[in-house]
């Protein structure tokens, strides 16, 4: 079996494109219950923040699952706060869009280059720029989101909490936006008699990057690899 030299970089760019497109729809940041607290309380709750400024949240109590999706605007109390939060997501969105457009361009330019057209330098440059932009986007949101997260009124939409919630769901309200001091983080289970002994000192809530963030970051790494490969093929030819 012989694989054409051009196939690997093209496949890499294609995978990067798919990952980036998925990144638009998948959440970029999430806050969820840690596995130990899920097991101890026999229930779960989580909230996912997407690039399109929609928070998708879910909770399960005794096999009863409820889902909700609300715009981030519903979780802020003033226009000023909303603007600050929206600017983070809008800037990240713009970086990803630019990265996606350049990835598409690089794919087209690489295909043209195989036929010998004089687009080789441009193809390398487009792939490198796309990689750079998609690398910057996750880093940008990582550094800026913790600074604006305290402007939210709550991290999980209150509509998820039923009338007579179990005690632990009330605890969800304990996770205050001001607790978010970093993009990654967690809070410990409170030392309360309501929690079994085997789970004490464990994590209660944890937050960090979600699938969209991870796929975009991976896409940028794949594009960096593709850039080097394209460059090597050109040098060789």
């Amino acid at each position, binding site marked *: *079996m*012989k*694989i054409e*030299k051009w196939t*690997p970089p093209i496949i*890499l760019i294609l995978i990067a494109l798919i990952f980036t497109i998925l990144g638009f729809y998948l959440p970029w940041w999430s806050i*969820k219950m*840690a*596995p*130990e607290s899920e*097991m*101890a309380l026999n229930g779960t709750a989580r909230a996912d923040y997407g690039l399109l400024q929609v928070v998708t949240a879910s909770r399960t109590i005794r096999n009863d699952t409820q889902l909700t999706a609300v715009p981030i605007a519903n979780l802020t109390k003033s226009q000023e706060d909303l603007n600050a939060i929206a600017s983070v997501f809008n800037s990240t969105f713009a970086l990803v869009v630019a990265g996606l457009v350049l990835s598409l361009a690089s794919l087209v330019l690489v295909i043209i280059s195989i036929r010998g057209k004089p687009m080789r330098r441009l193809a390398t440059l487009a792939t490198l720029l796309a990689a750079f932009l998609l690398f910057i986007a996750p880093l940008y949101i990582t550094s800026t989101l913790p600074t604006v997260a305290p402007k939210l009124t709550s991290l999980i939409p209150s509509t998820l909490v039923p009338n007579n919630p179990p005690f632990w769901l009330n605890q969800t309200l304990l996770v205050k936006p001001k607790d978010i001091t970093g993009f*990654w983080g967690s809070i410990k289970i409170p030392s309360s008699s309501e929690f*079994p*002994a*085997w*789970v*004490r*000192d*464990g994590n209660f809530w*944890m937050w*960090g*990057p*979600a*699938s969209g963030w*991870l*796929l975009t*970051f*991976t896409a940028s*790494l*794949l594009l*960096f*690899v593709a850039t*080097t*490969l394209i460059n*090597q*093929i050109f040098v*060789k030819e």
Partner: protein
Amino acid sequence: MKEEKLTKAFLLSCLGAVLILINGLIIALNGAPLMVSSGSIAPEMVLSSDAPLWWRISFGFRGLVEGPLMILWLIFAVIILFSALMFYIKPIKRKTLGMVIIAFSILSIPTGGGFIIGLILAIIGGGMVYEWPKPARQTFLGRLIRVARLDPKMYSSFIEELKGLKPAAFTIIFVNILSGLGIGLYSFNARKILDAATPISTSTRIILFGDMFLDQEILVLPITFVGIAVVKWIILSGIMYIIGVKIIASKSEFEKIGRAIALAYAPISLQFFMPFIFTSKPNLAGWPLTLFLITNLWMILALVIGLKQCLDISLGKSLGVVSLGGSIYWLTNQLIFVKAFGTSSGIPSSAFMIFPLPQIPGIIQFAIEPPELVFMFMSVIIILAILLGVFTKH
């Protein structure tokens, strides 16, 4: 043909890299290692003395995979992929690329090593890249796999091809470091579970959620015992040489016998994977014991095949040599190492250790008591060796 081997090495490394990347992405998404278990168990039950047998395999160790650290694991996986692709496009710096693939595959172990399969594929692929254009079967790793499958022809060529005792000594050191790390990590965490002073939540985190606690002792132990392992290997080689060459009168050299024994030690390195699996509390010692029995039995079989090829004797005779030599070694090991070091480390002086490290603190001790039973066991072995023709000249 050359192109075909290039594609094969590339595809293996690539597949390994992709699996490592997928494993890394899943872990990053979960924020916790991937767990496979024998079924659900109530957390309160897992540590009770009457817990049923429950096991879990953890692909990755919690504490090493969460937070910003996960970016590093993703970058490592992409580096493996990059090296495999670079090799395919420009197979010039194949040795460097092969080394990079192997090194970063090993570094992926804390994240589960691409469900272990990815790690194995990438290491084999990396080995092929390093030795390209040799066919897979002829590479060092390919031959090691054939040796592990107890292929007698492979044994002969492997023992003949190696020069001097240096590679054999390195094999012993490498195997001991790998098994020592696995044993150290497992026993440190198992001891934590068994320790009454440890909070119940810590024990549960280790068993149920794949947490791993580290300590400098885990690193120090395997390095400290490297010297002893080499001395023990020389003693075993000497015993086998005396029986094989002086008693049976086969034509062989000490070097060849030493190499055969070092090669036979290879399955012991599988003990490295011990901390990936944990069982419920009453069976904590059961799992490592199973692995010890399997790897040691494998080692004994490899030794029988290796000495058969080395001394050019029948399989039965080789079994006799291994039984007699092994039991003498066992006794020597007890007298020199266990008595000298074991008592001070709290192991009963009558404990007879049969694995490379003199002790696995607090977890496993192989002891035959009363001591008279040991002498009876030795007598049976000697009669067996006579029946198998050990004392008949070649």
